[in-house]
């Protein structure tokens, strides 16, 4: 009986705080995406021929985000019934955008205006004994091109 009550409490806490954290994170992502828009990130390998001399430097951005109790419960149920696990979609979307933003922020610090050959890696870490996900790690990396004054 008590663990049933604990379960409901965890579920409610997970829902309330998870939703709040997600809203806050999305707001911050959108703001920073606006700020960093002028840094162009593409996954083409060849630098532009625009007559500007550029030096290449590796930049990375990574983030580990965990899903809340409520969403993990939803995902567990969903895996019985099949279909799209909507509760993990926002997790992955947030993680990727955050990783790209961190990579771009690093590029801006170096004075770069472009990131080329950008790649994204996703891995799920902190799996527990039964092989279920606790959180997801996304790594974004690429070559920042820093204009060099002649």
């Amino acid at each position, binding site marked *: 009986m008590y663990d049933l009550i604990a379960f409901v409490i965890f579920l409610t806490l997970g*829902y309330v705080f998870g939703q709040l954290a997600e809203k806050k994170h999305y707001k911050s992502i959108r703001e920073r995406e606006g700020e960093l828009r002028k840094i162009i990130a593409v996954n083409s390998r060849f630098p532009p021929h625009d007559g500007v001399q550029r030096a290449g430097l590796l930049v990375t951005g990574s983030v580990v985000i965990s899903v809340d109790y409520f969403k993990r419960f*939803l995902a567990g149920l*969903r*895996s*019985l019934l099949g279909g799209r696990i*909507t509760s993990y979609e926002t997790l*992955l*979307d947030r993680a990727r955008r955050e990783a790209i933003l961190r990579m771009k922020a690093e590029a801006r610090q170096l004075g770069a205006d*472009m990131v080329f050959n950008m790649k994204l890696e996703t891995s799920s870490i902190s799996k527990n004994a039964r092989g279920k996900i606790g959180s997801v790690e996304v790594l974004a990396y690429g070559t920042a091109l820093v204009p060099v004054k002649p």
Partner: protein
Amino acid sequence: MKYRQQPDIPEGINTSHTHPLKEFAFLLTMGLGLVLALSLLIVFSIDWLAERVPYSLEQSMVSTLDQKFSERNAVDDYLQSIADKLKPAMGLPDEAQIRVHYVDDETVNAMTTLGGHIFVYRGLLKKLQSENAIAMLLAHEMAHVKFRHPIKGLGKGVVLSAVFSLIMGQASDVSAQVISRTGSLTLLKFSRDQEQASDELALKAVQQIYHHVNGAEDLFKNLQDKGNGRAEFLSSHPDTLKRIAYLQQLAKQQGWPVEGDRIRVPENIRRLVF
């Protein structure tokens, strides 16, 4: 070739719009419905199969019990004699053997296992003041044998735990808990129904042998103070007060006399038990 600042990408392309609570309600109903349907299917098919297992096969599964409990004392024989007296009234088929064993232990319990072996603990026996109450207890356990509850329980336990562990391999920890809980609550409901059916048959048999049902309730009155305070839907037996009320109502309905002489437990048995 130009490199342009990326225009704003609208939100919601890589995420879905369903509200999490709506999704939650949908998944919970479907998930629990699925588990419930699955458990019911398993329960009914196991019951169907169990009724078709011959008693002889059940007995041979636990043949070691006969050797293990071959030493018998006066209490064993006394209990056995009551069981033998009740047997014709229970409607048990001839091939169903009943073996009653007395366990010298303070536990307040009695149980029935495969092959018609009934175990009565001293802890419970010393609370029962008359032969009538002991008969009610034995009749209740014999009703389990008649309804094939031990083998049904075994089958259900094995199959359901196999199926649920398969499901749990797929689900996350949290949902696995919910699933196993739904499954076990369903099983408990069946267990309570089984207890009630056994109570009913037992009372009928006691009435047939002793021509009154006085003393039968003693069994439950003694269980009452042992109550564990758990909510009924979480326990394997019905609420004791409800059991007494149900039996009183049944006796009234059938016009069974509730007054009558109680038979005292013989002195040599009392000395051994009390």
